[in-house]
C-alpha cells in the first residue's frame, strides 16, 4: 500500500536532484545599482574582518556564509538580471552578498533570497502563482516585507503547535518568518549609516559646517559642539530658530537606543580596552550613545567604564570610515574606505589578542581542507575501483592507499584546525561528528586493507570518507548555523569532551563502517561477483567481524564514560535520556550480534544483515534521538535532518531486504566460517 509512496518519493527526490543540478536561476527585477564586481583581493581581505556575533569573534566571511545558509539554503546567490547590457547571470559568494547588503541595501533587498517550496505558502501570504511546478519560487526581502505582519501572524499561530502536529505549510511559514527576521535584522543593521539627514537652521550649520545634508559620522565627530548647542537650546530645542534640531535629536536618540539583553546583530566595533573576561564588542548604538552624551569627557559622570571607553574618538573614526565606505559613489573609494575601516578594526582586535583565531578561521574557510579531502577521496575511490578491475596491478593498489591516506591527512588537518580555532576537542556539535566519523571510519577500513589486502576495504574507505564529508557539507547548509558556535555550559568541560564524545563516536564510526561492509557483503553475494570459492565474501565477513569488535569496545566504553560524566554533571549515572538509550541500543545490538555469532545462531549472512541493522540503530542514535524533541541531548536540532535520517533508513533497509531475499532464495546455506580460524585438517603424512 505504501510502496507507491516510497517510489514516488524516490522519483521526486531524483527530480529534485536533477532540478537542483540544472536549476534555472531566479530572476532579479530592476536595475542593478552596483555596476562593477567587487575586486577579488578586497573580498578576500574584507572576508577576514573580525566582528563579534552570537557569543564569539568570527570573520566577516563566516557571518556571511552562516547567514546565507540560514536564509537562502544555498552556498551562493545566483540570479539572472536583464539590464541595459542584456541578460547577465550574476553569482555572488557569501562575502560579496553581505557586502552588497551593507553597501547596496536597495539592490540586495531585491535579491531572490527566500526559497518557497510549497505554493500553499504563497497562497497563504496572498501572492499570485501559477500552481505547483518543478523547482522553487524565490521571494525577495522587498516582496516579503509588505506581508511581514501577515507572515508573523501565521507563524505565531504555527509556533503555538508542537512540531509533530504542524502541517507542511505551517512548518514552512514558521521557518520563513524566522528567516525573514534573521535577514531583516542584518539588512537594517547599518540603516543609520546608509544615508544622511538634512541640515536646517544657522545654529546647526554652525556645528556641522555649511552643508545641506550631513552624515551621522560627521555629527559624531562634532559631538562636542553639538552638545553645546543642545545645552544652549535647553527646553527650547523645538524653537524654529534652531532649525531641525528636534528631528536630529529624535534621530540620534533612536539610533542610540541599545537594546537590552542579547545582541541580535553582529557587533563590528571592538572595545579599545584591554580584553576583560570575555567582554562583548560595541554595538553601533552604544558608541553613538556614549559619544553624544560625551561619556569620555573628564567632566561627565559615567559610572560604566565600558560606556566611557565607547566614546573613544578612534571608534568615531572607524564609524566615519565605515560610513564613507557605505556611501562612496565609486568602487575605488568604497574599497579604500572599507579597507581603512578594516585596518583599524584589525589593529584594535590585534591589540586585544583576538585577531589570531579570527585570522586562522578565515584561513580555515578559505583553505577548505575538508572539501579537498572529499575530492581526493573520490579520486582514491576511482583508483581503488581500478585496483579491483586490474587485481594484478600493485601500483594501482599503492596509488589508492596513498591517495586515501592523503585525503585522510587533509581531513585530519581540517579537524585539527577546528580544534585550534574553537579551543576544544574535535567534537562539540552535531556537524563535527560527520567529519570525525568519516575520518575514523575510513582510517579503520584502511588499516583493515593494509592487513588483509583484499582491495574491497580500499574501495569502501574512500567511499565512507567522501560520503561523510558530503553529508557534513549538506548538513552545514541545511542547518544554517555557525558550525563553531559556543557550547552550552554543560559541554564546556574539555576533559569529558575529549574522553567521552570521541570514544562514543568511534563506536558510531565502527557501527557505520560495519554496516557499510555488511552492505558490500550483500552486494557481493546478491550480484554473484565473488570468486567460485567465496573468498571475497569470507574476507568481507572477517573485516566486518573486526570492525564490529572495534565498534563494540569503543561504544561500550564510550557509553559508560557518558554515564560517569552524567553522574558528575547531572547527578545520575543513567537517566534513560533518548541519546543515552540510543547509545545503549548500539552497544546491545553489537553485544547480541557477537554472542549470536559465537553460539552459532548467525553465520556470515546473518552477521552481515545484522550489522546493517545495527547501522540503522546507529543512525537512530546519532540523529533520530535528537529529533524526538525529548531529553537533555536535544540541542542539535534540524528539520532537514529528518529527511536525511529517513533516506538512511530506506537505503539500509533496502540492503536488508535484498540480502534477506538472497538468503531465502539461495538453495543451500553457506558452510560455517569463522574468521581467524581455519579448521584443522586431518594430516595423513
Amino acid at each position, binding site marked *: 500500500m505504501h510502496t507507491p509512496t516510497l517510489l514516488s*518519493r524516490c522519483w521526486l527526490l531524483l527530480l529534485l536532484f536533477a532540478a537542483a543540478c540544472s536549476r534555472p536561476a531566479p530572476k532579479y527585477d530592476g536595475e542593478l545599482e552596483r555596476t562593477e564586481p567587487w575586486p577579488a583581493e578586497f573580498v578576500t581581505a574584507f572576508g577576514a574582518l573580525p566582528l*563579534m556575533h*552570537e*557569543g*564569539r569573534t568570527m570573520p566577516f566571511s563566516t557571518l556571511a556564509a552562516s547567514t546565507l545558509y540560514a536564509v537562502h539554503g544555498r552556498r551562493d546567490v545566483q540570479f539572472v538580471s536583464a539590464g541595459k547590457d542584456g541578460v547577465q547571470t550574476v553569482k555572488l559568494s557569501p562575502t560579496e552578498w553581505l557586502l552588497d547588503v551593507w553597501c547596496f541595501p536597495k539592490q540586495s533587498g531585491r535579491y531572490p533570497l527566500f526559497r518557497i517550496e510549497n505554493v500553499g505558502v504563497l497562497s497563504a501570504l496572498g501572492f499570485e502563482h501559477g500552481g505547483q511546478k518543478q523547482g522553487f519560487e524565490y521571494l525577495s526581502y522587498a516582496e516579503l516585507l509588505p506581508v511581514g505582519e501577515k507572515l508573523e501572524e501565521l507563524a505565531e499561530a504555527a509556533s503555538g*503547535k*508542537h512540531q*509533530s*502536529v504542524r502541517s507542511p505549510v505551517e512548518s514552512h511559514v514558521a521557518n520563513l518568518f524566522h528567516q525573514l527576521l534573521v535577514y531583516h535584522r542584518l539588512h537594517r543593521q547599518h540603516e543609520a549609516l546608509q544615508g544622511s539627514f538634512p541640515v536646517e537652521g544657522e545654529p546647526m550649520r554652525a556645528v556641522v559646517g555649511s552643508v545641506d545634508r550631513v552624515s551621522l559620522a560627521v555629527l559624531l565627530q562634532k559631538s562636542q559642539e553639538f552638545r553645546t548647542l543642545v545645552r544652549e537650546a535647553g527646553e527650547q530645542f523645538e524653537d524654529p530658530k534652531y532649525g531641525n534640531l528636534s528631528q536630529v535629536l529624535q534621530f540620534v536618540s533612536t539610533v542610540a537606543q541599545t537594546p537590552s*539583553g542579547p*545582541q541580535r546583530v553582529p*557587533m563590528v566595533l571592538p572595545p579599545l580596552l584591554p580584553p576583560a*573576561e*570575555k567582554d562583548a564588542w560595541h554595538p553601533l548604538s552604544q558608541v553613538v550613545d556614549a559619544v553624544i552624551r560625551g561619556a569620555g569627557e573628564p567632566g561627565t559622570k559615567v559610572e560604566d567604564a565600558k560606556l566611557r571607553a565607547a566614546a573613544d574618538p578612534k571608534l568615531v573614526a572607524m564609524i566615519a570610515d565605515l560610513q564613507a565606505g557605505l556611501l562612496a559613489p565609486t568602487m575605488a573609494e568604497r574599497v579604500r574606505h572599507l579597507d581603512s575601516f578594516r585596518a583599524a578594526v584589525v589593529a584594535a582586535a590585534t591589540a586585544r589578542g583576538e585577531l589570531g583565531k579570527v585570522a586562522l578561521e578565515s584561513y580555515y574557510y578559505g583553505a577548505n581542507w575538508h572539501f579537498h579531502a572529499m575530492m581526493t577521496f573520490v579520486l582514491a575511490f576511482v583508483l581503488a575501483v581500478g585496483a579491483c578491475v586490474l587485481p594484478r596491478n600493485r601500483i594501482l593498489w599503492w596509488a589508492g592507499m596513498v591517495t586515501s591516506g592523503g585525503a585522510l591527512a587533509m581531513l585530519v588537518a581540517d579537524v585539527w584546525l577546528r580544534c585550534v580555532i574553537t579551543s576544544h576537542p574535535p567534537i562539540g556539535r552535531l556537524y563535527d561528528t560527520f567529519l570525525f566519523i568519516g575520518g575514523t571510519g575510513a582510517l579503520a577500513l584502511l588499516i583493515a586493507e593494509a*592487513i*588483509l*589486502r583484499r582491495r574491497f576495504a580500499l574501495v569502501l574507505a574512500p567511499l565512507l570518507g567522501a560520503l561523510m564529508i558530503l553529508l557534513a557539507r549538506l548538513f552545514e547548509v541545511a542547518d544554517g548555523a555557525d558550525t563553531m558556535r*559556543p557550547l*552550552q*555550559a*554543560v559541554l*564546556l*568541560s574539555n576533559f569529558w569532551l575529549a574522553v567521552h564524545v570521541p570514544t562514543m563516536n568511534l563506536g558510531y564510526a565502527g557501527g557505520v563502517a560495519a554496516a557499510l561492509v555488511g552492505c558490500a557483503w550483500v552486494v557481493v553475494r546478491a550480484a554473484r561477483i565473488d570468486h567460485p570459492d567465496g573468498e571475497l565474501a569470507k574476507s568481507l565477513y*572477517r573485516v566486518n567481524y573486526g570492525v564490529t569488535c572495534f565498534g*563494540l*569496545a569503543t561504544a*561500550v*566504553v564510550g557509553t*559508560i*564514560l557518558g554515564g*560517569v560524566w552524567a*553522574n558528575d*554533571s547531572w*547527578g545520575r549515572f*543513567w*537517566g*534513560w535520556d533518548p541519546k543515552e*538509550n540510543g547509545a545503549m*541500543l548500539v552497544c*546491545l545490538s553489537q553485544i*547480541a550480534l557477537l*554472542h*549470536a555469532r*559465537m*553460539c552459532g*545462531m548467525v553465520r556470515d549472512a546473518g552477521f552481515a544483515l545484522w550489522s546493517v541493522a545495527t547501522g540503522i540503530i546507529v543512525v537512530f542514535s546519532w540523529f533520530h*534521538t535528537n529529533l*524526538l*524533541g*525529548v*531529553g537533555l541531548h536535544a540541542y542539535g536540532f534540524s528539520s532537514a535532518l529528518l*529527511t536525511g535520517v*529517513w533516506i538512511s533508513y530506506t537505503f539500509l533497509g533496502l540492503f536488508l531486504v535484498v540480502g534477506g531475499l538472497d538468503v531465502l532464495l539461495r538453495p543451500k546455506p553457506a558452510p560455517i566460517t569463522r*574468521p*581467524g*580460524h581455519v*579448521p*584443522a*585438517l*586431518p594430516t595423513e603424512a
Partner: protein
Amino acid sequence: MTAAPSTGAQAVPHVPPVGPGERVLRALGSMRLSVWLVLLLMLQVLLGTFAQSWLAIQDVQRDFFESWFVVGELPISFWGKPLWPDEFNQPWRLRIPIPGGYPVMLLLAVNLVVGGLVRIKWSARTAGILVTHIGILFLLVASFVKMHFSYAGMLGVFETPADGNLLPGRVYETSRIVSSYADELVLLVDRGDAIEERTVPEQQLWGARNDGIVTVSAEGLPFTVQVEHWVDHSRALPKGPMVRSLLPEVDGAFLQAATWPPGEQPQAEQEYSGCYVTVRPNSGEPLKAILRSTRREPFESSRYPWTFTVAGQRYGLDLRRVTLDLPFKIKLDKFQKRDHPGTLSPMDFRSYVTVRDGTSTQEAQIFMNNPLRRDGYVVFQSNWGPQPMGGPPWYSIFEVANNPSDLWPMLACFVIAAGLLLHFGMKLRRFLRSSAVTRAEV
C-alpha cells in the same frame, strides 16, 4: 562453548550423561538465552525511549525499567509522517506486551554469572572475556545498589545579601533536601506541646489509583483514613457551575489529572500528586478532603495541613514531599553566571557555598561537572533562578544525592575497557599471525 576451537571433523565428542540440575544450569547460562535477553532489553529500551514522547520521564522509568511487565507502544510513522494518524495528527501506536526491567535484568545477571563466569572455560584465551563480564556484573550490582539504597532530592537557597538583610519566606541556609518525586501521607497528632507525626510512603497509596481504595489505620486511633482517586500528576481546580469534573467535588474544588497537548513533552516535575481522603471515625459522620502535594524551594515551605477533630482530639492530614535533613547546612555566599558575550546563553554558572556542620566549616565552589562530595553525599549544581534574566536576588538549586555506588560505574568502566582491550587485542594478535593474513600477501 565460547571461544573453544572446534576440533574439526575427526573426533566424536564424548557426551557424559546430564542431570536435571545440570540441564537447568546449562539453560540459564546458555549464550542463546543471552542473545534473546539482550534483544528483549533492546525492545524495552526502544519502546521506553518512544514512550518519553507522551509520558513523563519518571513514569517511563517506573513503568518500563523498574517493573515486572509492561505494554509498550510503538508509534508507526514513515518518513517522519504518522501512519493512520489520530485527530491530533499523532501516529497510531502498536501495542507490544513485554516483560519489564526487573525480570530481564535479573535473568541477564544470572545468565552472566552462570554462563559468562562460572561455566566458561577459564583459560588465558578467555581472560579478557572474564574480566569484561566481571566489569559488567559490577556495573549491574552498582545499578542495583543505586536503585535500592540511594536517594536524591533538591535543595534550594537564595544568595545571602551582602547587607545581611534577610527577607522572610526565603531559604538562605538549610540542610533540608526535598525529594524530587516521592510524596508521603502524614498524620499529625496535636499533643498540645508537640506535634506527633506518622507517615505512609506514597507507594502504599498507589492502590488508590483509578477506582481503587486504600484504607490506612493504626492502633490507638479512633478512626481510619480511606484514600481514593490517587492522581500522580494532579491539578486542583475550583468547581464552577460550567466546569465538568470527572472526580467528585469537595469544598468547591476537585482534582484533575494533568494532561499534555499532543506532541508536547510532559513536564511532570511541575505536577504534584493528589488524592481524596475520607476520615471515618469509629462513631460519627465521615469527613472528606482533597490533599495535594507541592514543592516550593528555595522559598520557605509553610504547609497548612487539613485539620479535623475526632473525639475531642485535633488531628491533621497532609500530602507532602518526602524531606530529609543532611548532616550539614549549605549557605549560598555568591552565585555567578557568565554568558557568552552579547548573548543570554550561559557559559558557566557556579555557586560559592559555605558548608557547615557542628564542628567544621568548608568553603566550596559547585558548578557544572564539578559537584561537591561530602559525608557520602554529592551536591550538584542543578538549576538557577530567577529565569531567564537572572538576579539579584539570585538563587541556586542543588541536587543532592546519596548513592553508595557513586563511583562504582567508573571503576567498572576501567575494568570493562581493560577486559575488552585484552580480549580483542589477543584476538587481533592471533589473527595477524594466522594463515589468513599470510595467504593474502601472496
